[in-house]
């Protein structure tokens, strides 16, 4: 069976001070029907741009330099911006952004915003699309939908606005939901509610998810597969449990060591030395190498690629074996 979504060799070129660089540099993955992939990484790693490139919503400074997006076996046509995908397969995907307040139209009621796609994309009549919007408001767990239908975005709380965003995303009946840090600006008690809603949508409607986040703590709750992104590339992918329990790329293990554990307050978090490389000055070899404790001269000269390191797990590191040995020693020592 063909995967629902295939992304092949996605390269996004961005410009800064008239210099072009690859902000996303050869990202590939496949998403099964009903599956979920979390893309995790720090600010500037290219995770949101990856999502925007898939959706065809690159900013003006960005250009899809190469790569293909295939939905259900059909390659999406688009111009270099990734635009021009208003028809056909493109409708199978929707996107949810982090900041619902700026993504929503401030001068239209939320009901009308949700009813827009049913009316103009799915071609339903006025009352049918209104009924559909009410049904969606109910589906995303907004109490009293008849009253909320007429509310404006600013009248709603952050959590409710994010539910409205999800309702709008679902209104064109997509198969794939692309989520760009949808819970980052929400409080934790609201975050658990939104994550529960997404899980429900997956199990009840068979929705597939690509979930971008900087928070390793939510990854295992939303997706069974994870891709760790650094400087525009996937450096490790695999089953979420395996990657978090036994990371094989030094960046993944560094992120885990830097994270705090609410249940284990006395474990000292260890920061990753150095800082993100300047994307304008990326050199050959591994881009994490300047910050890596396992780096050898080979890492500077060899172009690393994702290689299989375990069942379904891949890492782009020449020394992934050293890491697994070190982890094992650390655990038993």
């Amino acid at each position, binding site marked *: 069976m063909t995967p629902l979504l295939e992304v092949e060799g996605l390269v996004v070129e961005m410009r800064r001070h008239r210099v072009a660089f690859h902000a996303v540099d050869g990202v590939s993955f496949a998403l099964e029907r009903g599956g979920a992939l979390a893309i995790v990484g720090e600010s500037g790693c290219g995770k949101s741009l990856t999502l925007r490139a898939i959706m065809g919503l690159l900013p003006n400074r960005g250009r899809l330099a190469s790569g293909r997006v295939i939905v259900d076996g059909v390659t999406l046509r688009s111009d270099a911006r990734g635009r021009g995908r208003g028809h056909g397969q493109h409708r199978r995907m929707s996107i949810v952004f982090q900041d619902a307040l700026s993504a929503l139209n401030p001068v239209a009621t939320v009901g009308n915003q949700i009813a827009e796609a049913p009316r103009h994309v799915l071609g339903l009549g006025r009352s049918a699309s209104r009924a559909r919007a009410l049904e969606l408001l109910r589906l995303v767990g907004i109490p009293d939908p008849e009253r909320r239908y007429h509310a404006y975005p600013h009248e709603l709380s952050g959590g409710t606005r994010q539910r409205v965003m999800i309702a709008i995303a679902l209104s064109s009946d997509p198969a794939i939901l692309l989520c760009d840090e949808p819970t980052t600006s929400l409080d934790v008690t609201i975050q658990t509610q939104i994550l529960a809603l997404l899980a429900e949508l997956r199990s009840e409607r068979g929705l597939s998810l690509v979930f971008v986040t900087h928070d390793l*703590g939510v990854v295992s709750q939303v997706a069974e597969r994870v891709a760790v992104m650094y400087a525009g590339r996937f450096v490790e992918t695999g089953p979420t449990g395996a990657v978090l329990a036994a990371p094989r790329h030094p960046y993944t293990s560094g992120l885990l060591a830097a994270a705090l554990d609410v249940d284990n307050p006395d474990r000292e978090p260890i920061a990753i030395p150095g800082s993100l490389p300047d994307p304008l000055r990326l050199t050959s070899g591994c881009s994490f190498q300047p910050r890596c404790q396992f780096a050898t001269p080979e890492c500077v000269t060899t172009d690393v690629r994702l290689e299989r390191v375990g069942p379904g797990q891949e890492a782009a590191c020449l020394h992934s074996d050293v890491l697994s040995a070190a982890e094992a020693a650390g655990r038993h020592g």
Partner: protein
Amino acid sequence: MADALIEVDDLSVTFRSEHGHALRAVDDVTLRIAEGEVLGLVGESGCGKTTIAKCIAGRITPTSGVVRFDGRELGARRATEDRRAIQMVFQDPYSSLNPRMTVRHVLSELLRVHGLVPRAGIEARCFELMALVGLPRRALDGLPSQFSGGQRQRIAIARALAVEPRVIIADEPVSALDVSVQATILRLFEDLRGRLGLTVVFISHNLAVVRHLSDRIAVMYLGRIVEQGDRESVFSDPRHPYTRALLAAAPRLHQVELVRPMVQGEPPSPIDIPTGCPFHPRCPRAEEICTRDRPRLERVGTSAEHFAACHFRDETSPEAPEEP
């Protein structure tokens, strides 16, 4: 606590909205902060934690209640010395630094205006401050835009330290930083407290951060402290249902199963605070009494310093504490 450095008594802050509604941001809060301790103030957005911080720092005048520092009441107009003693560090090091001033300019101006070191000693003191926050000397000649988020936060901390404060109030100082650099800033706070004997009020929505750094914790909800105590009591034996919900919802790396939301809905508007216990509309434990009587902070558990404001505070956690 015998020797509290900061005493906050019956503090309330009411703002007027543009429609004339009264918004109770802080509602009758009493708090003690001992010299040299780290108090973690947790709660979700809008719970009033920043407002309390600003009252302590003298940036907001409370509607009622008093703030005492070292036994003296601090009024609305504070002596320079009192203002200097309590410094704030903010979440966003991008907007809290003047983009046109070099680090040297910022620091030496402060040192000169406050006359803390003789003119000839300013340069040396700048070097000292850089060393204290772990930045190289050459950073003094940089503009804020030339630094990363973590470095900027170090600069903001150096600026706070320049006036030799006794208390630092840090308002979400690591929330805007990437995970890989958060650890370095947290360590800096630990280090400064050890070396300078600083008292720290650490405000965060992130329970893991607060648990890691604090000696004592105060949990806020809708302008009130609903639970407070030493770190271990609050985290291993939480007595307020809101504290339990926050703990359950905290992101965990190896959380395999989806967390079932313990509380439904969202916090009500602080313009229209519910009667009785303000948490009752969302509380899984609420009974009729909770809609009528507002629970006061009362002692719970075995620790002398553990308080919770809940009618059912003597019930221990319904779920067995999680084993890692």
